[in-house]
């Protein structure tokens, strides 16, 4: 029972971390161009990637 005091916040915290990461990626436009993202690894020169 005592273990739960630590484990539950940790579990929820990890979940929240995942949710925050999802929100962040959505806001950064990572879901805007799903097909393009798959192709960009073939692009040779990625110097101009700074936005």
């Amino acid at each position: 029972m005592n273990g739960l005091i630590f484990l539950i916040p940790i579990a929820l915290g990890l979940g929240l971390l995942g949710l925050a990461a999802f929100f962040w990626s959505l806001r950064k436009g990572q879901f805007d161009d799903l097909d393009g993202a798959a192709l960009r690894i073939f692009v040779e020169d990625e110097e101009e990637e700074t936005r």
Partner: protein
Amino acid sequence: MSAAAAPLLVERDFAVPAMRCAGCIAKLEQGLVRDHRITAARVNFTEKRVHLSCAPDTETPDLIGAFSLLGFEAHPIGDANEGAEAEAATSRELLLAVGVSGFAMMNIMLLSVSVWSGAAGATRDLFHWLSALIALPTVAYAGRPFFRSAWGALRRGQTNMDVPIAIGVSITTALSLYETATSGPHAYFDGVVMLIFFLLCGRWLDSVMRDRARGGVTALLRNMGSGAMVMETNGANRWVNASALEPAMVMLVAMGERLAADGIVIGGTSQIDLSLLTGESAPQRVGVDDRVHAGTLNLDAPVRVKITAAGADTAIADIARLMGEAAQGKSRYVRIADRAARLYAPAVHALALLAFAGWMIAGAGWHQSMLIAVAVLIITCPCALGLAVPAAQIVAAGALMRVGVLIKDGSALERLAEVDRALIDKTGTLTLGRPVATNLDDVEPTVRPLLLALSQASRHPLSAALTRDLAAMGVNAEPVEALAETPGFGMEATWRARRVTLGRPATSTGDNGLATQLSIDGDPVATIHFSDQLRPDARATIDALRAEGIAPTILSGDRAEAVAPVARTLGLTAQTAMSPQDKLAAIARQAGAGHKVLMIGDGLNDGPALAAGHASMAPGSASDAGKNAADCIFLGDQMMPVVQAVRMARRTQAIVRQNFTLAIGYNFIAVPLAFLGYVTPLVAAIAMSGSSLIVVGNALRLKRAIR
């Protein structure tokens, strides 16, 4: 146009439909910034768009020029699609809600698993409270789309799929909260959140599908944000966007350019291609004082046109008005999910009420009766039903997109599956809608490289057609010098110290003037004739349509003499010289006889008919009005995608029906259990996720259905 010194940048969007691979992305992003006016370029491959940041004084034609230097055709995207931005925002909002409910579902499940595996007493209460803590904000946030839509329906005195969902979710949450507060054994927080999660997935899939198709369609729209080069009184030329054009301005229309407004020719002579406006295949010769219309294509030579009407006043505005009226009929179509909901929602409510009343009469007490009624609500909530339709439709739309058919939304697929008559436009639909060289095989192989050398340097539509056909034959251009183009006549160059020309034939060729002649030192060596050709698989498509039980006929705005050969080749009956109103009437007649009409057409004159048809398709080369009005768009020279789309739509409907059967069958097993009070939160969770997975798995079978 503020102070040029300030490094203020303008953001512009361009549609580049031709990007296909990673190489294109690299070429565009790295090539465009080499232009000193462009500071940044970012490709969105999914929507086939390029976002540019450029110097504020850059003119649109310059930017388009930068694209064509890289070998890409670019179309400016104006502000006209702000509505689309709003819809993309809705889609993002839904995705956020999916994320939130997914997170909540997983965490509540984590706690629920320990409750199911036997946690009791204080631990169970603690876990229930924690679940409530996660579930309540989630329901309030992620459930908004359902509450909003249910409230909207109830206020109008109607009911839809969202009404049982909203009621079920609210009652279950309230009861679970009561259970938690009184240390009861069962709380349904996991079920509620899972329900919201699955339903949101369905909603999101639906909206993604619409977004994706719209992205493809915007990429194809040419005229949006277009404009004209306007001659100022002081002689200078300035690019003016179509929306800013005004009567009495004088625009310079280069050859190969589309007119942006109605007007009267005040200088130059040329031929005008009317095919998109009227369906007529032969170009019309115009000179000073002739009227010309917006949306038509200038073929031959630059002309000066004095604008008489722009924007909403143009001749095509009439067609647009007809289109608006015709589209109203279609909006009455009720989607299959909503039709199912009309039967389903009252049944669900009645069942839950019956369960409550039954157990009350049996003397179970209101608390127990309520618990059972909630279990019935949760079990019958249309979780699988909410996924059944969108999952199948998005898989089908994705498969069709790979063969070059863009489906605008799910209801288009549903309507497409029902058609039993096809009315097909001729010019641009059964035919390619562009000139194709007809006698290239008769031309000496030795002069072909010379032809290509001259034609590839010109922007004239006939030259473009010649270049495409020659390149397809594998011809390589001969090196020539001193290339020059004389508007209204043609190309001229020096080849091995001899003067070669490619241009209008010296003598009339007898046909409708679509011919070009190659001469060396003034002696004609080859005359190439052009005509609009049938699509290569038109015959096969017509046969396949018949095999699917769809009776095709031609509905053309062109003259009977022009339509007859096509009709004969394809073995079709035809109605000719039809105005947009006539086409509407023809569709209304078929609809009146109980037929569901598939309209296939491309021109502005087909716009109203496309809007009125039970379902409609347009080729990718169609007018913007046609593409906007059509339910689906097929790309490329092949016509077979039309039949593939119909087959796919029928297959999708079959899968959707299977999914409904599965969902209803599951209810037949689960509802009696719920009635008898055997459904614990664990059973509800298994039943719900199980049925949803089965439905999605069934929909995925469509992926391999296209052949």
